[in-house]
């Protein structure tokens, strides 16, 4: 177990070239697919070490922060409900610390420095904990840790002290934050996959948080199956990619940029994983269902972070692999369809949370388009959108959560009219929704402008089509944003007063949220405004992030006003179109219905589950037919026939070995054979068991004769105990074996027994005779004392040389014991079944003599007979 810590100081390689944040990348050289890319400086050139205070601590910090998430998360879960709402405060500590820590690293990261650390795990499999924090990872950490902290703060007000299982929920949130950090920090595809699946698992547990609700459980399972299946497909792709590139390190794979048919297939597999995780069409069905989770969970996992894992991976791969012919058409089409279908379906929702969920689907499609293009400009725009979306969508979820929490509903048609004290909440909602729809002066506008500009500059043949799709999708975004704000804060005032629906408070009873409840959302909205007004503050972060994805990215300059340009005109068209859609919503029902009619993975998912259940039923019916003789027969035949077939075809006949060395062998063997035959033929079970015992003791005698007292000792002990146990079980079985009336069955049994006997015989003969190299046991005998400090070789092998095997064996033994006990328990009558203490036979087999237990009723005092 070696531990290796290293620092990459890749920055500043292109200093003075006018591209100060140009990160060096190891050029792969003669790869035809990449020939069009500009030559890049080699890693070694211009490397500059900057000795800094506390570098080592910084490297350890990455691992320590991840470990902290795990420890705190598990600790909170273990503490149960003891902490109450304080669990959320404790749970917020790891993300908050991570955020703070990142704050201190930002200056170095902006200089293009990369913090990485690596702990090797299973070197032979390429399995290592490679962590790497570059500009883009830093951007994601901002989302994961920053929004994570805000969500924890929000959750302390959202949940009441009496919420059941709050400790579990808080712990899972912390664990999720750790897993998500792992995803964005992993530089090893296997580690990335592991963390990826961990986020799926924590998401599953969080969606199903209310485990009494069948709907929540089904939604959780849907999300789990879709994302985990996608993850598995992706793992297959990863393995092929890594094998072609010769390394499991993500950076090494990207540097090597392998190509070929196999790699293309692998990339499509990875893209399937991306699409399931980031809820891309046609796999988006699980995300709306995931809204069964409590709102803080939805705000965090299902809008700001987890669903972006797919986009994150896409962003990493795209700059390198977008040159492959299938990439752009495939990814961009999927993204556009997702964006428009999501937008159409969002417009049809009356539940505000579902509206936001479909909005998230739509926005994820937007990000997929940008990152899927893979051009330097699009990568930059994607980074801006990633951040902007995290800010406005989390805030909107928080607003919907506040509405739900204070009024008891989040349905547009049920929400009560809210009074003036709700204005701060409305302000947060308006700012965030406006940012989502790309209204000027807000951060979302900057992102949208950058996106339009990127597509225009991309030099794509059909840029106009992509641009048209983006404008249409953005117009839909504006329309559902308006629907959200109007539905929550305007239309309830216009409706005639009426009886509130079930569980909904009357308008005069509704209290506005407390300041602490509002604050996290307000802070996020404030960022949306500030970053919208002075986007230049983000120039360096976004530039570093995007240049760490693609070295060709020019330093970006984000600005509010670019002059009268095409993007500005497109923004105007978007706003106009979106407003028209919103105003004419009633007349557009027919158009909107298209979105609902598009087939989704939801139907396919249910179909697959149904087929799977049916197939499983049939298979179980055939395989688990409940007949013990058939089970035993199948197992024994398999064990005998398979090796026999191999030996007959492959191995050479070693010749007859020496059959008996001394008279004792013949004697013992005779007893063995005789008692084995007797055990097979005798009718009384008890006698059969005793004869079976004789064969065991006979084996022990053979061991003694061959000079293996250790084996003999074990054999005797085992034989004694198993005979006793057999007798225990026997009490519950009939006294005699059933007589088989059908002759063919008896023949079948005889054939099986004969085959097994022949198989074992040949196996023993060949195994002993087919030795080709020096037996390893000689070395073990030699090394037993010097290495294992023991003179009993068998024992030294068991506890030292082959200790790990023994460890595995005793674990299996323990598991088998627990299983056997459970089976024995399951066979017992349920408590409450009146049972006389004497050994009366159970109802099923009246009068069966075997059921006279050897228990207390049968015991007699020996003394009585003696005296």
């Amino acid at each position, binding site marked *: 177990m070696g531990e290796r810590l290293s620092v990459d100081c890749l920055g500043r390689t292109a200093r003075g070239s006018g591209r100060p944040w140009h990160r060096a990348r190891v050029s792969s050289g003669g790869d035809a697919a990449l020939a069009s890319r500009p030559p890049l400086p080699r890693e070694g050139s211009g490397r500059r070490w900057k000795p800094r205070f506390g570098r080592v601590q910084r490297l350890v910090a990455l691992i320590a922060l991840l470990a902290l998430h795990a420890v705190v998360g598990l600790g909170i879960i273990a503490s149960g409900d003891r902490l109450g709402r304080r669990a959320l405060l404790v749970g917020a500590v790891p993300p908050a610390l991570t955020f703070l820590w990142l704050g201190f690293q930002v200056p170095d990261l902006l200089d293009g420095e990369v913090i990485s650390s690596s702990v090797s795990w299973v070197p032979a499999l390429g399995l290592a904990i490679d962590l790497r924090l570059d500009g883009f990872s830093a951007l994601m950490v901002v989302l994961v840790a920053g929004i994570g902290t805000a969500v924890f703060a929000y959750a302390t007000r959202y949940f009441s002290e009496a919420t059941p299982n709050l400790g579990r929920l808080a712990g899972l949130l912390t664990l999720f934050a750790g897993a998500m950090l792992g995803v964005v920090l992993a530089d090893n595809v296997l580690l990335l996959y592991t963390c990826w699946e961990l986020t799926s698992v924590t998401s599953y547990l969080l969606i199903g948080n209310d485990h009494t609700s069948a709907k929540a459980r089904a939604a959780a399972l849907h999300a789990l199956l879709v994302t985990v299946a996608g993850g598995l497909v992706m793992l297959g792709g990863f393995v092929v990619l890594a094998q072609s590139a010769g390394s499991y390190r993500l950076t090494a794979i990207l540097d090597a940029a392998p190509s070929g048919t196999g790699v293309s297939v692998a990339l499509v597999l990875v893209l399937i994983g991306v699409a399931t995780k980031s809820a891309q069409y046609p796999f988006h069905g699980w995300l709306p269902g995931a809204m069964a989770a409590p709102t803080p969970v939805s705000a965090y996992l299902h809008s700001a972070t987890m669903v972006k894992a797919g986009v994150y991976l896409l962003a990493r791969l795209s700059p390198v692999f977008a040159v492959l012919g299938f990439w752009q058409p495939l990814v961009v089409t999927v993204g556009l369809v997702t964006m428009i279908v999501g937008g159409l379906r969002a417009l049809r929702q009356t539940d505000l949370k579902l509206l936001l969920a479909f909005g998230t689907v739509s926005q994820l499609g937007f990000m997929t388009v940008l990152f899927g293009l893979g051009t330097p400009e699009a990568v930059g725009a994607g980074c801006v959108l990633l951040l902007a979306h995290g800010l406005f969508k989390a805030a909107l979820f928080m607003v919907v959560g506040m509405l739900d929490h204070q009024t008891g509903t989040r349905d547009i048609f049920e929400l009560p009219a809210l009074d003036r004290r709700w204005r701060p909440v409305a302000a947060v909602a308006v700012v965030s929704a406006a940012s989502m729809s790309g209204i000027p002066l807000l951060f979302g506008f900057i992102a949208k402008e950058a996106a339009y500009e990127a597509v225009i500059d991309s030099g794509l043949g059909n840029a106009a089509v992509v641009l048209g799709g983006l404008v249409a999708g953005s117009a839909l975004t504006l329309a559902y944003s308006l629907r959200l704000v109007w539905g929550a804060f305007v239309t309830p005032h216009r409706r005639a007063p009426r009886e509130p629906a079930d569980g909904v408070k009357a308008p005069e009873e509704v209290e506005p949220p407390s300041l602490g409840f509002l604050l996290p959302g307000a802070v996020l909205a404030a960022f949306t405004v500030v970053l919208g007004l002075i986007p230049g503050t983000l120039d360096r972060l976004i530039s570093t992030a995007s240049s760490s994805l693609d070295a060709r990215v020019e330093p970006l300059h984000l600005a509010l006003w670019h002059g009268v340009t095409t993007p500005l005109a497109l923004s105007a068209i978007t706003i106009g179109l979106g407003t028209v859609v919103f105003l004419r919503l009633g007349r557009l029902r027919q158009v909107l219905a298209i979105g609902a009619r598009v087939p989704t993975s939801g139907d396919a998912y249910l179909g697959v589950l149904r087929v799977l259940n049916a197939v499983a039923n049939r298979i179980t019916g055939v395989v688990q037919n409940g007949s013990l003789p058939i089970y035993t027969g199948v197992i024994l035949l398999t064990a005998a026939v398979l090796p026999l077939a191999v030996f007959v075809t492959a191995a050479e006949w070693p010749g007859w070995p020496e059959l008996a060395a001394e008279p004792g062998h013949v004697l013992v063997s005779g007893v063995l054979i005789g008692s084995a035959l007797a055990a097979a033929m005798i009718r009384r079970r008890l006698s059969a068991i005793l004869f079976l015992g004789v064969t065991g003791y006979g084996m022990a005698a053979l061991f003694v004769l061959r000079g293996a007292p250790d084996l003999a000792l074990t054999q005797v*002990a085992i034989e004694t105990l198993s005979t006793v146990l057999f007798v225990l079980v026997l009490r519950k079985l009939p006294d005699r074996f059933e007589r088989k009336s059908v002759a063919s069955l008896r023949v079948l049994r005889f054939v099986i027994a004969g085959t097994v006997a022949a198989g074992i015989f040949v196996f023993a003969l060949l195994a002993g005779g087919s030795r080709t190299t020096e037996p390893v046991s000689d070395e073990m005998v030699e090394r037993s004392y010097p290495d294992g400090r023991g003179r009993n070789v068998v024992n030294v092998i068991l506890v030292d040389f082959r200790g790990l095997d023994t460890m595995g064996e005793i674990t299996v033994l323990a598991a088998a014991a627990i299983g056997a*006990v459970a089976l024995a328990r399951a066979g017992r009558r349920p408590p409450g079944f009146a049972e006389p203490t004497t050994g009366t036979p159970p109802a099923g087999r009246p009068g069966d003599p075997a059921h006279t237990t050897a228990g207390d009723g049968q015991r007699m005092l020996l003394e009585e007979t003696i005296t």
Partner: protein
Amino acid sequence: MKRLVILDRSVRVIFHAVLIGSLWLLFAGHNQPGGGFVGGLVAGAAVAMQYVAGGIDEVRSLSRFRPWTILGTGLLVSALTATIPILGGHEVLESGVMTVALPAIGDVKITSALAFDVGVYLLVVGLILMVFESFGDEPPVDDLRGQTSGSGG
């Protein structure tokens, strides 16, 4: 409850002797025939004698620990012995040796493999107790309830 007195008395006498024998097998196992597995089996045979003489109640009265507690402790001891060397930067299951001077007995060499063997011993004993517990006499209804809630926690 009726008992065979002679059997009962004999088992009382033999039981502890067999148990000590099993411990001897456990500790001598590293250099002479024996070891944790055989030792555990022999201890299991002692338990079987108790069962034959006095039934499941007699077996239960042997230890105030539940069978699965013993089984789990054994597994834990073995697993700890296997993993502790990692903390010191050694390989899994790397064995260490310590010589202890005991009064009256003299120098006793203790290897970490012995701790591993002790785990195996406990596991086997727990396993056998569990088998008797589940295939032996039917437990009283209350007891069954108590055990299920106990093992669930």
